[in-house]
């Protein structure tokens, strides 16, 4: 452990952390868009959009994230003749994969809103958009947020995959330091683990704040803020 000097690595570490953080944020953003699109489509009455959404969701859930990433990075350029930036490729893979899991969250939460709420909307002659925005979504939101937070923790935990496609994310920088400081392997990885743990805890904290905000809007009691409730993962098929 002696002679370990973080100084020369600092700039690289910050750069790596930044890549991990923005890949997480953009990946989450894409995942939310995909989740709402597919989740709402899979609730459609018409059989065609519903089936299409179901097939896409099952496809991206069923084929492993790593396979999807490799497919986008290695196979797609051979088909399209155009090579995406690897960070962008990783963000797309993360967004599609977690978006598919998220679609189940959206679907489950919206289905869980009691039917009389919808009937009341019809009785009041609200438009579809209006009733969704002001009645259904505000009630579905607090149900969506905890599982979505778990998915986001999963997403952060998947960002080290960028290492495999030659992107210099935080994990990759950690590995570079390990090579450069052969005496302090344990220390380096422990540091990397702790940083990822802190990132996950930040997400857990934000999730609980959001959940409280969504509940307060409905006049429900807020949950107590604690980090002890993180479940980490919503198992593959479970959500609602």
């Amino acid at each position, binding site marked *: 452990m002696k002679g370990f000097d973080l100084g020369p690595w600092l700039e690289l570490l910050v750069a790596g952390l930044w890549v991990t953080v923005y890949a997480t944020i953009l990946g989450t953003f894409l995942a939310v868009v995909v989740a709402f699109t597919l989740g709402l489509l899979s609730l459609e009455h018409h059989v065609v959009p519903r089936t299409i959404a179901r097939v896409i969701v*099952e*496809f991206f*859930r*069923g*084929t*492993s*994230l*790593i*396979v*999807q990433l*490799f*497919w986008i990075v*290695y*196979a797609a350029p*051979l*088909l399209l003749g155009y090579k995406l930036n690897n960070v962008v490729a990783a963000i797309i893979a993360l967004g599609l994969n977690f978006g598919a899991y998220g679609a189940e969250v959206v679907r489950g939460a919206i289905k869980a809103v009691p039917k009389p709420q919808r009937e009341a909307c019809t009785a009041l002659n609200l438009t579809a958009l209006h009733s969704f925005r002001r009645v259904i979504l505000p009630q579905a939101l607090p149900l969506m947020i905890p599982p979505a937070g778990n998915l986001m*923790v999963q997403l*952060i*935990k*998947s*960002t*080290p*995959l960028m*290492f*495999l496609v030659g992107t210099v994310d935080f*994990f990759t920088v*950690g*590995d570079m330091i*390990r090579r450069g400081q052969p005496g302090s*392997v*344990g220390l380096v*990885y*422990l540091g*990397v*683990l702790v940083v*990822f*743990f802190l990132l*996950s*805890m930040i997400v*857990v904290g934000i999730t609980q704040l959001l959940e409280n905000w969504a509940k307060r809007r409905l006049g429900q009691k807020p949950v107590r803020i604690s*980090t*002890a409730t*993180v*479940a*980490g*993962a919503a*198992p*593959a*098929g*479970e959500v609602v």
Partner: protein
Amino acid sequence: MIWDWQFAREIFPILLLAFLEVSLVITVLATLLAAALGLIMAVIRYSKVPVVSPTTSGFLQFIRATPIPVQLFFVFYVLPDMGVLINAVTTGVLVLGIHYASYFAEVYRGGIESIPKGQWEACTALSLPMRTIWQRVILPQAVRKILPSLGNYVISMAKEVPFLLFISVPEMVAQAKDIGGATYRYVEPFTICGLIYLAFSYPASVLMRKLEIRLETA
């Protein structure tokens, strides 16, 4: 030619074999480890021993909130420094097993806590022996809640086995990558990998959903 059927036919058996012989075997071994370890951890947490139980909870949360690849590298590069030499496959089973044990422990806890208090009180009222309480009353009810969640975790574990290519375990996706690197044909190997995963995990998750519904109504 974008898709070469001849080539696809050639590599399909190789990849399928790698899936069955490496990926699935690792999944099964890691599941067994996770099931046993998770139970021990859950019991430790449940028993509320001072110092030990909170430490275990903290450890489990730390494991759950950190990425598998970092944990893999930690074990893979640190253990040899401490004089423990284990190969990549064993490392992989160990890390996946411990990682999922932290989920399993949570599932066990949830399952046992879901048993209504009245059941425990009835057992006390009948002064049933501890063994009978667990064997005949608590576990048969808890298993119904636990089994589908555990199954879903196993499915997602199978999809995370390719993480082991970080430490060069020759599972299916690693082999597909090697094939791609050697032939510069990536479309067929990765497409086949995806389809094999889909063919495994879709029926498996449908089965879990059926199991869930069946156990619920019973």
